[in-house]
């Protein structure tokens, strides 16, 4: 039964919230409310504004903020022929170093110029305030020319920007690594595939594709099938804490199992059908496969057995194993 497992494709995201502080707060508030601020430092005006004098590190306070722009001059630029998913436009545009009128340094920003032919060093650009403004540098963009922007509609009661939100994320796409692919294909056929180290004969389940003790890589030739039956080597009872997104409400057991024929344990095995008061190290358990096996969260990392493959683990009826015999495998 040949089953095609898809490539891995997921997006890992982290929502960052940053306090803005005494300079970035007014700067981002300004962008939201329709003005651009720089910092007067000595006889120069720096934009973007700074909390410190770059020449000596001395503090530059909010009393030094001055308004600059809305027009400016392009001092450097590049044309982005194929924007990434992180760029402010999904069509070709320019990133430019823009020296705003009244400033002595350049700010990096995007120019929606339509065509590379509209771009040149020394050209004039002017800010545009986006309709949706959240107190971020992405609240604005620039366009060629000198036509002053429409003053944006400002909510006079809005609080100054004290927090900047930025969701960062990276899309990861890759094939399953060969050892993972064979392991997961095995599970689809209700087989548990491990790898026997060519260095010391120990069987790793699931394998990471190498033996880290002896520093040898393993290949398909090292694959071995192990039993869907084994011995509990350690366990914990998890009492679900009610965090955002938590779906568990009742305590349950997670255990490590040493499968027959294996020398490493599978971790995080989910136990729901055996009462905690009966559960112990040394207990013999057997897998009850699901009728139809599928999973949609396959990855290259797994250290356990994919939860989508088993209905539950049942006691085999065999006598318990002396815990002393599995104490080297408790994790």
């Amino acid at each position, binding site marked *: 039964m040949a089953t095609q497992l898809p490539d891995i494709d997921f997006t890992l995201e982290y929502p960052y919230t940053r306090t803005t502080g005494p300079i970035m707060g007014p700067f981002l508030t300004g962008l939201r409310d329709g003005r651009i601020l720089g910092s007067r430092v000595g006889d120069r005006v720096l934009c973007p504004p700074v909390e410190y004098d770059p020449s000596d590190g001395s503090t530059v306070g909010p009393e030094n903020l001055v308004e600059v722009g809305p027009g400016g001059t392009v001092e450097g*630029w*590049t044309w982005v022929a194929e924007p990434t998913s992180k760029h402010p436009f999904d069509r070709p545009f320019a990133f*430019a170093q823009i020296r705003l009128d009244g400033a002595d340094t350049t700010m990096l920003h995007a120019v929606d110029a339509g065509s590379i032919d509209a771009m040149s060093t020394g050209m004039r650009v002017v800010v545009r305030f986006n309709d949706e403004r959240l107190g971020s540098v992405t609240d604005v963009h620039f366009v060629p020319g000198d036509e002053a922007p429409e003053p944006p509609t400002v909510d006079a009661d809005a609080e100054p920007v004290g927090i900047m939100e930025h969701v960062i994320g990276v899309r990861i796409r890759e094939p399953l*690594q060969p050892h993972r692919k064979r392991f997961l294909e095995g599970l689809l056929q209700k087989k548990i595939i491990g790898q026997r180290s060519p260095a010391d004969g120990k069987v790793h389940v699931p394998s990471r*594709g190498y033996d880290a003790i002896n520093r040898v890589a393993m290949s398909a030739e090292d694959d071995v099938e192990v039993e869907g039956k084994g011995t509990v080597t350690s366990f914990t009872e998890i009492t679900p804490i009610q965090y955002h997104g938590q779906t568990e409400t009742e305590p349950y057991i997670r255990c490590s199992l040493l499968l027959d024929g294996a020398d490493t344990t599978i971790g995080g095995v989910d136990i729901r059908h055996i009462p905690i008061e009966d559960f112990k190290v040394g207990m013999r358990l057997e897998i009850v496969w699901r009728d139809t096996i599928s999973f949609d969260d396959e990855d290259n990392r797994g250290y356990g057995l994919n939860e989508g493959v088993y209905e539950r683990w049942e006691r085999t009826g065999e006598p318990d194993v002396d815990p002393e015999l599995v104490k080297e495998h408790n994790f």
Partner: protein
Amino acid sequence: MAFEPQENDIAIIGVAQTAAHARFDGPEVVMIMDCVNTLLGDAGIERPDVGFTIAGSCDYLSGMPFAFVSNVDGMGAWPPVYESHVEMDGAWALFEAWLRLQMGDIDVAMVVGSGKSSPCNAREVFHLQADPYVVAPLGLDPDALAGIQARALIDAGKASEADIAGVVARSRAAAASNPNAQVSGSVSVDSLLAEPYDMAPLRAHDVSPKADGAAAILIARRDRALELSDNPVWITGLDHRIESHHAGLRDLTDSVSTRLAAAGAGVADGPVDVAELHITHAHEEIILRDALGLDDSTAVNPSGGPLCGDPVMATGLTRIIEVARRIQSGEASRGVGHAASGAALQQNLVVVLEEGGA
């Protein structure tokens, strides 16, 4: 006059690297393991003989939080290692190991740089190195700032598009003799200039091809180095400097931090036979040659350099390896390895390597 090592001097006694793979099928650990086994095998020592191990990598590339922890498997999981990690190119790991050995209580250290960048679009990761308030939210990535830097160089009259294409043509020709390179071969400046712009004035071939790969170095204090190696390569200078993360506060047509690091490392104290430069955009070679004070007597990027294979997070360490190999083989007596980090050469590390006196 050849370098005369003193007791506290430190030498490279072994180097290893994988090829720059467009995509490596297996785990990153296996690439590290290959390098570690080569190093230990060549030196004839066991892993417990290594007093300190350190790696440079970036978890974002493979989308695995704490990937750097599983990477330690590549050094061998038992007995436990005394280890450190930098979220930087392996060249910065070398800097920490070099400092660590100067404490004098241990005498051998292993340095690894590794990365699997094929699962992601690196441009969608490395904009996060920029200022988090005024640049990163724009997604302004290193390739975009490189485009701005290349134009600044052209606008200042310091280079032409043909000069930039010339760097690519020369690099690819040099890479023909490098078995680890991803791309190589003869290509004319005219044909390169006929290609469309990507981040104008840069073209796709001006940007290094990202790769999966690993590199590793074994270093030792003088007495142990002389025991373990017939031809140790001495680290006679090492320095790294950083410039403002606000591009508007920098002169993008110069690399002030490279000048400072080169002075700190003593680049000008002797002839430079070979230099390997961490250029991920072709125009950077023009800036770095100037900042390092290199003239035509120096062979620059004889391996082809990163423009012919960029195993992200191992690329800088690989530059140092390429120089060390040439000194080990007797092809050069003194050379400069350079590593960069951040957009538009924001941070630069310079190491001077020399053969030892008889």
